[in-house]
Structure formats: structure tokens, C-alpha cells
């Protein structure tokens, strides 16, 4: 069974770190994913860097540029997934923008992902309007198309998106880009209540999540919390990125401040 589908059958507190593939260096990626799993991550979102990431803030943009300079590309990321699968069964989603995938060949990409052991895909610049072929391909290869919703997405559209996604959707917590301020408590509550009411599948929340308190709060209202820019910011300060990942994920999963 698809690993993402499997873990979201049970409701529990879930932390999902985002890791830019190839950042800080190519050799770190496998170790970072394994360290995240060991420290309590329920699933990992692996970022495929793009030169013009317009849903991302400066932190992820800079990490992406460094990763591109390190020579990371789609074929390399699929090889990394194969490497991870030698020692781990953690659910894995690849996050990225559509252009590098079109260049690689969308059909080939989805087939190669499936063969390598990827469980889901998150493509922020591919809304349902443009996603017909993508959705069909994902279905035939048993990958979860993790479609996105935003605070300004109307209820009926949330319903349609969740039906098309089928297994999991991703709620952008704020109107904005990654690495920004978190959402105001009341607004977020109202928004996620709306998602709960309209979505036919589980949903995780990302953008602006930083600490244990955010993780607890989000998991009360949703099915998992994605954390990205905050970890990369820590990695920028310290040399040992694997140690940063371990301590960060341990803290936010267990609350040991």
C-alpha cells in the first residue's frame, strides 16, 4: 500500500519536515531523511529545487539556489530516493515546480518516482485547472497527488480538490509564501474548520510553522504539520546539518525545550 495512504488512516500527531534535496550538500540528503525519521518525523517532504520558486520565501529560495549550484537535478533526486529506500520505509513526498518535470517528461517522471519508492507529489504551481494529465498519471502509478488549498479557497472548491487528491491535501496556512509569520489563531481555526467540513480526505498544514507549540496546535485541528524554512534557518547557522535535524525534530515532536 502507498505509505502516505497507510499512515493517514490513523489520526495521530504528525510532524513532516521539508528538506531541500542537495542542501547544504548532495551527500547530506539521505542522512537528513534518515535522521528526521529516527527523531520522530512521520513523513518527509523532499524539495526539488527550482530557479524561480514563486511560492517560496527567501530562505528556501536561497537553499534551492545552493542545491542547484551543487548540481542537483530530477534524475539525481530519484536516485537519492532509491538510496533512502535501501534502509527506510518512511513516507516520502517530492515537492517542486512544474517546469523541471515537464523538461524531464511528466509521464516518465511519475513512472520513475513510483519505481523509486516515492509516495506523493506536491506541485504548488499546478492547480487542478492544469492538472488533468498529472492526476491521471498519479492514479495509474499509485502516487498521491497532494493538491493544495489556501485560506481564500471557497468551500466547494476545497471539496472538489480533496476529491481529486483522494488521499491527502496540503493546507497553506496563510496568504503568503514559505518562511513567513504564522497564521493568527482565530483565523487559522476558522479556516481549518472549513477545511474539515468540506474536505473528503485528511489534510496537513504548512507555511509559518516553527516550534513545538505550533505543532501541537496544528495537530489538534489537522492531520499533520509541515515544517520547512525554520529548519533550514537553523542549518544555516550551524555546520552539522544532520545534528540540527535530529535536535530540531526531537524538540518539536516531544516538546523537550
Amino acid at each position, binding site marked *: 500500500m502507498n505509505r502516505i495512504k497507510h499512515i493517514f488512516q490513523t489520526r495521530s500527531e504528525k510532524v513532516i519536515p521539508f528538506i531541500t534535496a542537495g542542501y547544504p550538500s548532495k551527500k547530506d540528503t539521505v542522512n537528513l531523511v534518515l535522521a528526521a525519521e529516527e527523531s520522530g518525523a512521520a513523513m518527509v517532504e523532499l524539495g526539488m529545487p527550482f530557479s*524561480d520558486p514563486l511560492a517560496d520565501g527567501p530562505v528556501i529560495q536561497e537553499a534551492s539556489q545552493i542545491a542547484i549550484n551543487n548540481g542537483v537535478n530530477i534524475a539525481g533526486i530519484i536516485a537519492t530516493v532509491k538510496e533512502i529506500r535501501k534502509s527506510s520505509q518512511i513516507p516520502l513526498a517530492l515537492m517542486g515546480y512544474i517546469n523541471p518535470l515537464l*523538461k524531464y517528461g511528466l509521464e516518465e517522471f511519475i513512472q520513475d518516482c513510483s519505481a523509486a519508492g516515492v509516495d506523493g507529489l506536491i506541485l504548488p504551481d499546478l492547480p487542478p485547472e492544469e492538472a488533468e494529465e498529472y492526476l491521471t498519471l498519479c492514479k495509474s502509478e499509485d502516487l498521491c497527488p497532494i493538491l493544495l488549498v*489556501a485560506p481564500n479557497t471557497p468551500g466547494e472548491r476545497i471539496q472538489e480538490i480533496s476529491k481529486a487528491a483522494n488521499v491527502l491535501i496540503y493546507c497553506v496556512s496563510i496568504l503568503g509564501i514559505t518562511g513567513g509569520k504564522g497564521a493568527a489563531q482565530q483565523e487559522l481555526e476558522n479556516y481549518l474548520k472549513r477545511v474539515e467540513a468540506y474536505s473528503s480526505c485528511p489534510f496537513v498544514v504548512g507555511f509559518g510553522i516553527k516550534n513545538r507549540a505550533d505543532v501541537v496546535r496544528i495537530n489538534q485541528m489537522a492531520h499533520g504539520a509541515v515544517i520547512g524554512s525554520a529548519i533550514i534557518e537553523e542549518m544555516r547557522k550551524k555546520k552539522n546539518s544532520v545534528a540540527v535535524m535530529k535536535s530540531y525534530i526531537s524538540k518539536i515532536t516531544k516538546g523537550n525545550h
Partner: protein
Amino acid sequence: MEIRGDKNLSYQQPDENGHFNEFGGKYVPETLIPAIQELEKCYNVQKNDEAFQQEQKKLQQHYSGRPTPLYFAPRISEDTGYNVYLKREDLNHTGAHKINNALGQILLARRMGKTRIIAETGAGMHGVATATVAAQFGLECIVYMGEEDIRRQKLNVFRMNLLGAEVKPVSSGSKTLKDATNEAIRDWVTNVENTYYLIGSVVGPHPYPMMVRDFQSVIGEETKEQFARIAIPGSQSPIPDFLIACVGGGSNAMGMFYPFLNEKVQLIGVEAAGLGVETEEHAATMTKGEYGVLHGSASYLLQTEDGQVKLPHSVSAGLDYPGVGPEHSYLKSTGRVEYVSATDEEAIMAYQWLSQREGILPALESSHAIAYLKQRDNILQQGDNVIICLSGRGDKDVHTVADYLGNEI
């Protein structure tokens, strides 16, 4: 070359989802979907609204100074053997065709109740046009501009400041138009509720490519009428043989070409070849690009083997863009428009040529279109009636040209 224009075929693009066959579309984050749906709805109502059209027309006449002249350029005609006409978009208020689009969009923004206007700019002409209309209607205006472009176009930065706009420098990536556009989109995602994104070219998600084309098509409509009026009955066709325009994002070219798509006229778009299309330093998207998605639509794109966007190069900041409007990609794929390119050097020579022979300083962008007249392998014939869209004036470029020629000002 076969001319594909045919009066009996009616050109209807894009389709209702904003696709020009495989090009165009709405490749944007979910947060922007409600915003572009709202814009599309508003535009579809207003474009058929008489009051909107009248207000737009009045502003075009009394504020921008339309119609702009169609000028027969005798001395460059003499030099080349073609009958060369210049559509003088440089004589618009603010000095370029960009105001046509800015006026149309600011009226939409007002009808949508938006109070904050954002824009991206390359050469600064679209930024100036946006700052101008925002000042005119008393709206807050923020313009994103790459640091490299700020350096090249200091004069326009100061003009925007004088007009009350805030120019936000963009230091990511190539520090040019591509990255300014990324930042403008990020701002829009963040402030979508009160903010109107006034895109400056026929790029971006649907409905922008269609809407900007429509607002710019006043160029071609006037040209058609003006040329028919000056054509001598019996001796000249009421339709020119060639229309030539430069293509960066492609708004002046789309505005010029669109009303002629069903006519028997050859259409030529001139891209920036920078240091040459055989080098890595150019902005010739149609000549060297491949199918891809950037800034919300599918089109030809300069990209690496891994699908990363390449950094373009052109001496002209307004053409220094790795993408192109999706409708141009469509028109290339159908063969209706021929796309060629001119180098930095050819453009600089054309800039001087037009200045010296006609007393008109053309924008460096427009100079690429003029340069085509001088290319030995062009497809023009002696005696052909050739109309060039002179999209902007060249005052903003004097520092760049002086630098290029090794002069200090």
C-alpha cells in the same frame, strides 16, 4: 514565404480556459486562483461595458495623447529602398506603449475596489506607466525592479519616485525582470485581498495575456486605419506588406499584430540576440527556447537541460527576459508570425541610425525592430510598405548607449 493571414478565417484565441493550444493557462499557486478568477470575471463584464470603454477612450485621448502618428520616415526609406513607416508609440505620455495597458488595468483595479497597485518592471517604462496611473487615481503603488536594472535605468527609478511610487530593489537571481516578476507574484500572494497586480506585458496567468493584448491592440487598430487613409487609391494596397515589432514579453508586438492576424500582411517579431544566438548571452526565447512554464503560463522558455530557467542577456533591459507571451509561442507554432533576432550591436547601430537620419531617438527595445531593416538576409523587398512599431523613446537609454560606445557623459 506563404502568408497565412486570411480574412475568411476568424482568429479566436485563447479558449475559455486561457489556452492557446498547448500554451498559456493558469500555472499559479492556489492562493491566486480566486484573484485571477475575480479579474477574469470583471474583465469579461467591463470589456463589453460602454461606460468602461468610453472612460478608457477618453483617457487615451486626453491623458495619453492618442492617436499616435503613423509617420512616413523618408530618409531611412531612402537608405533602404523600402517605404518605412513608424508607428510613434514613443509619443505617448510617459514615452512608450506601456501606458495603453496601464490605463486599461487601472480602470479595472478601481472597479474591483483594489487600493494597492503592484507591478514589475525591466527597463522601467512599465513601472513609470504604472506609477503614473496610480498617481493619477491616488492609489498606493509599489514597483519591483531588479538591482541590475536599477543600475542601468537610474533615470526611470527617479521618475517613479517623483510620481510617488516605492521602487523595491530585487537582489535575487539575475537581479533583472525575471526576478522582479517573482517578487511581484510573491507580494500578490501575500496581499491578494487589497492588491491589484498590474502586469506589464502579455505574460502571466490567464486572463493577463489576453487582456494586455486587448488593451494594446489600439496600436494595430489605429495603424490599420491610418495606413488605409494615406494609401493612394489604385497605386497602393490599403494594407501594408510587413509589420515589424520587437519582442521581449511581447506586448507592443501583440498590440500591433492582433488586429492584422486575419489580413494578408507578413508579421515579423524581432527578439534580442544579445551577443549572438550562437553564444550563451542572449534573450532569444523563440529562436532558442523550449516549451516550459514560467510566471503562470506555458510558453517557450530559455532553460537548462535540467529545466532551470536560464539567465538571459540583452543590452536592452526591456527585452532581458527568458520567457515570452504564450500567444507569441502559439503564433510561432502556427507559422503566422516569423520570429527573428537582432544583436546588441545591431540595435545600438540602429539607435544611432534613426537618431541621425530621422531625428528620433528610439528605445533600445524598438531599435531591435529597426535593426531588421539593415539585416542583409531579411525578407523585405525593395518598394515594400513596411510598418515598424516604435514602441518607446530612447532618452532613457542614452547612458547605456554612451557606455556601449565607450563615451562618458
